[in-house]
């Protein structure tokens, strides 16, 4: 048993190493502008925020729609604290160079982004986590909208640059960076889910009354799940800022939360691997694979393909999503996970079945 566990771990690490090597090699072969890298970067960022939302919606049973707000907090925290001092006068041109006149190292700022989001989550969690299901969703959605409005307020301009862009902060060039950061964060979330606290979260999801009667402090555990989920949403916000190279509060609309919710639902509520797979599929479809539908001048031979025009991609994309939801009513993965141990067990079972067949023949 222990030996097999070790084997599985080594195998998993080998797969991860292979993926990273492959990404590095591809980055040297393919042109920099290839859409593959956009998908890898944005996909890994969305994977992280989707998994963090799944921790809340899928594993703790708290229907929250504040994810875009916490990403905004993370993105702004990262941007505000990393713009080089020499660039601040140019960025904060309407606000006398801003009130912060120092900058932090990238990694410190990323962690700070998570902490700020977590801190706000803790505060907002005190009143709103008493609410249930739809009411909680509305309260968190409201919070996200308030945050977005607040960050565009001129009076806070010294910190947030009002409704103007924040830019010229350090960004990443290689897709290895977001993949690695998201990978580590998702690994931590998975470890949390498999720990005694994760089991308590699932108990709250399955039956709150029974969970409380068995000594699980509901308020404490819900707040914990909410804060941790927001911490990782904040980190993904920081990564998104780096990906976009600019930050503006107006980008973090509730539509962004719905996109993430869509990813979680399609991947399977309560499945981490489902969320990861569906993030990459979602980003690949919306950014890359369906692009050709936007080209109005498409000819097959002499035949002018009708209907195609800018924006048509979104129509097809919606149909694809509806089809997926109809075909996989509990999402691509349901609530199961892909794991090395699971695959090994399945293979072993298949082998045993085949051997039995041979014997019976």
């Amino acid at each position, binding site marked *: 048993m222990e030996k097999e566990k070790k084997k599985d771990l080594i195998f998993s690490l080998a797969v991860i190493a292979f993926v990273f090597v492959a990404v590095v090699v591809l980055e040297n072969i393919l042109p920099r502008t290839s859409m593959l890298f956009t998908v890898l970067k944005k996909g890994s960022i969305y994977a992280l925020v989707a998994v963090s939302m799944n921790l809340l919606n899928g594993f703790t049973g708290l229907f929250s729609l504040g994810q875009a707000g916490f990403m905004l907090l993370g993105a702004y925290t990262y941007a505000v604290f990393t713009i080089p001092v020499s660039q601040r006068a140019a960025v904060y041109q309407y606000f006398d160079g801003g009130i912060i006149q120092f900058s932090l190292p990238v990694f410190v700022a990323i962690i700070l982004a998570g902490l700020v989001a977590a801190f706000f989550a803790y505060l907002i969690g005190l009143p709103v986590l008493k609410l249930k299901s739809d009411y909680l969703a509305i309260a968190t959605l409201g919070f996200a909208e308030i945050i977005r409005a607040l960050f565009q307020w001129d009076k806070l301009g010294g910190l947030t640059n009002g409704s103007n862009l924040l830019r010229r902060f350090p960004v990443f060039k290689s897709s290895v960076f977001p993949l690695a950061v998201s990978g580590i964060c998702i690994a931590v979330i998975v470890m949390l889910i498999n*720990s005694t*606290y994760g089991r308590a979260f*699932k*108990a709250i999801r*399955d039956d709150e*009354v029974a*969970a409380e009667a*068995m*000594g699980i*402090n509901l308020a404490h555990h819900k707040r914990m799940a909410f804060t941790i989920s927001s911490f990782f949403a904040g980190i993904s916000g920081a990564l998104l800022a780096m990906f976009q190279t600019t930050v503006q509060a107006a980008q973090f609309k509730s539509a962004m939360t719905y996109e993430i919710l869509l990813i979680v639902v399609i991947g399977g509520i309560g499945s981490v691997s489902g969320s990861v797979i569906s993030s990459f599929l979602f980003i690949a479809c919306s950014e890359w694979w369906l692009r050709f539908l936007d080209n109005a001048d498409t000819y097959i031979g002499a035949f002018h393909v009708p209907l195609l025009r800018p924006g048509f991609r979104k129509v097809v994309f919606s149909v694809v999503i509806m089809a997926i939801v109809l075909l996989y009513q509990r999402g691509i993965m349901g609530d199961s996970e892909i794991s090395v141990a699971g695959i090994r067990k399945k293979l072993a079972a298949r082998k045993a079945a085949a051997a039995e067949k041979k014997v019976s023949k």
Partner: protein
Amino acid sequence: MSRTVLEMNDITMQFGGVVAVNSFSMHVDQGEIVSLIGPNGAGKTTAFNVITGVYPPTNGNVFFNGEKIIENHPRGKMKKLYAGTGNGKYTEHLEPTPDMITKLGIARTFQNIRLWKSQSVFDNVLIAKHLRRTSNVFSATFRLNAAEEKRQREETAELLNILGLYDVRDNNCTSLPYGLQRRLEIARALATNPSLLLLDEPAAGMNPQETIDLTDFVGKIRDDFKLTVCMIEHHMDLVMNISDRIYVLNFGALISKGTPAEVQADPAVISAYLGEDE
């Protein structure tokens, strides 16, 4: 003279104008099996919900192992509406949540089975061990509590062995037959290391054989785990066989108490169950 484990004084639970439990007092001594019986809607489960902190009582208090754990008195709107007795006798306001009560050592099962449906039999019991943890969220996430985790798993396996659920440990809890689901609920309650076990209709929906098994089973876990048991039950054979003492409720009020023989002979009980002679 054995020690009193649980003591309820003048517990009244009033929802608006409806008095679910009316000035009910009872006590349970160390090692006893005490039953709470009465017709449907008599307020038995409400009494359990008051003890376990689900509802703060309107009036009265509860002692556990000599320590006052719950106390309340009519306040606000209830001051005018209050229909029970003992008003003004209690002044403190002590309103713990169910998890705090469980931590003190009172565990319960539910009338309508409330297992964690997506979890295996093993995990249902393991999760109930969560409240006796010493780890915090960081040490648990980064597996610094491996020793505790291992110990919890061993204890869970042992508990399942004693209760005869070890062979089905990996099954989903909803796949078990009804009787075993009830037994699993008891296992889960025992996993919290209680000294007082509250069973809410443990024999509901069981066939006669399962009920006979349950009678032996409740006695056995009482002795094995050095428990005190308080139970709500409709199954009279079970109640009369197993109980040391019985409290009878009707329309929220206590109508009789005593040993099974005394209660069976009490005319008030007979009329509550069978109706008055015309």
